[in-house]
């Protein structure tokens, strides 16, 4: 255990970006503290479309709401939905993949054909279709993107399981009477965990952008909930008069994605030295 801790802490990049990521999460959690009196959803039209100033560091939007507050509160929406999304994809994909790889036969065939269907379609398009059909909301956006993204994890998990499926030690365990559940939890899942966690960590950034894209198109978070993607959409119409409306939310997405991408990359360097 001692050696493991050192591996994580000795990687400077990992430490730096973990701290940055933590700061971002903290900013979201401590939003009320950071924004003080400014509310992300209430604003008076008298304050509408004010450029950045002391009172409103990021300016205000068309409804007079403080954009700084909306960006910080927006972190809550973006971060929470992204984490849920990544977790769901990870969980569903891994379970289906392990089951598919372990049991083989028609279970494998069915799961893989469904996965093929999802992959046979450009992800964002299907996600738009699903989200559009189910009705626009953050929850449905998460469902939509999960639906098109789980195959990647399932395939990965499946191939990892299949690598050890027919090895001798697995056969030995079966012969000595290990029950299926035991086999799955004790042998199959642990073999897949590391690779899949790395994949999930490096996917956080891109999943966040997909969610933002859906919201941007109007299929995700609904107003007045502050969400970076939908804020960009609102800013679209005011580009000439109030460019700050779209610069800051976009910047927020960019910075957050950069931090989490770096975190994921560093995590991969630590856990999987084979990666160049």
């Amino acid at each position: 255990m001692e050696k493991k801790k050192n591996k994580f802490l000795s990687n400077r990049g990992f430490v730096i970006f973990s701290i940055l990521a933590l700061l971002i999460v903290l900013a979201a959690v401590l939003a009320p503290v950071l924004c003080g009196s400014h509310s992300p959803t209430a604003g008076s039209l008298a304050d509408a479309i004010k450029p950045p100033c002391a009172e409103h560091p990021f300016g205000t939007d068309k409804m007079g709401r403080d954009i700084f507050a909306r960006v910080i509160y927006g972190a809550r929406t973006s971060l929470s939905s992204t984490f849920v999304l990544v977790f769901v994809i990870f969980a569903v994909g891994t379970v289906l993949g392990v089951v598919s790889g372990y049991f083989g036969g028609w279970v494998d065939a069915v799961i893989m054909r469904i996965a093929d269907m999802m992959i046979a379609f450009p992800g964002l398009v299907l996600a738009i279709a699903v989200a559009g059909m189910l009705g626009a909301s953050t929850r449905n956006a998460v469902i939509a993107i999960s639906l098109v993204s789980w195959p990647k994890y399932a395939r990965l998990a499946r191939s990892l399981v299949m690598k050890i499926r027919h090895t001798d030690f697995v056969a030995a365990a079966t012969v000595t009477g290990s029950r299926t559940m035991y086999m799955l939890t004790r042998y199959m899942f642990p073999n897949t965990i590391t690779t899949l966690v790395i994949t999930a960590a490096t996917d956080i950034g891109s999943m966040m952008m997909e969610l933002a894209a859906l919201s941007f198109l109007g299929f995700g978070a609904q107003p007045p909930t502050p969400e970076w993607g939908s804020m960009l959409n609102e800013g679209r119409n005011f580009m000439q008069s109030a460019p700050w409306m779209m610069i800051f939310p976009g910047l927020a997405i960019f910075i957050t994605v950069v931090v989490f991408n770096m975190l994921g990359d560093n995590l991969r360097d630590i856990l999987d030295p084979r990666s160049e």
Partner: protein
Amino acid sequence: MGKKQLASRLLQMLIVLLGISFLTFLLTYLSPGDPVRNMYTAAGIMPTEELIQATRDEMGFNDPFFVQYFRWLGNCLRGDFGKSYSLNKPVVTLLKARLWPTLKLTLMSMVLMLAVAVPLGVLSAVHHNKPIDYIVRAVTFFGVSLPNFWVGLLLILYFCVRLKLLPVVSSGGTFKDLLLPSVTLAVAMSAKYTRQVRTAVLEELSSDYVVGARARGVPERKILWGNVFPNSLLPLITMLGLSVGSLLGGTSVVEVIFSYPGLGNLAVNAITSADYFLVQGYVLWVSVIYMVVNLLVDLSYNYIDPRMRLRR
């Protein structure tokens, strides 16, 4: 790829297409909103409940699910994808009209992407771990983290609003109209593809035959362009095929931003207006395009690599 393999692959594609068609139909069937009501509202009429029910009967919306599904499927096979309510035209016509602009956009983006990604990727791989490599890696890292809709908006802000160089709204006709949308798409895609080129070339560079060629005194440039690069093309073409998928998806967002008259824009509007037939038609068409592209990529791969051709 042998004939048998090709046949089984085509069969697979058919099954997947059927599955997708079923899934989309199921989705639209289950979703809230009434196409008939929407149709009337779009025409400016405020219908009574009886009128709605009567129209529903007439158009077959009250029939059981599978009847509706097979009816629709049968029509599709005959080339009739139904009629769009929101735009009051046959779906086929609408899709056909928008297909070429989207393809143009996709192609242009791909060309831009290749023009940037290939040289940078090769450069980065050949000068592995030297300053230029680090620069390219840093740039691509940021490029991959940029949301493409933000890039599009920023480009509009600078080139259209501030500098007034290019039109904001594209009619899909001229080169000027294509430029900003394709640059927007190309930015994120180049970043990703550059990394892939770099990885592929790096892997080839560490092959045994490179050492062998060096041992025979063959000059580095000949090794790189005569051997390493052609061999890297094989995985790169596959990756290119996959990026077509991302491109097709990415066009949705970009087309909306630039009001570009393509398939993606059409789809988003169709979904917002709950224009079911249009959405279903769109999903089917894009699936087919995507699968055909991937099939072509796989076929070409099998043809280019002599190991696949001869090791039968």
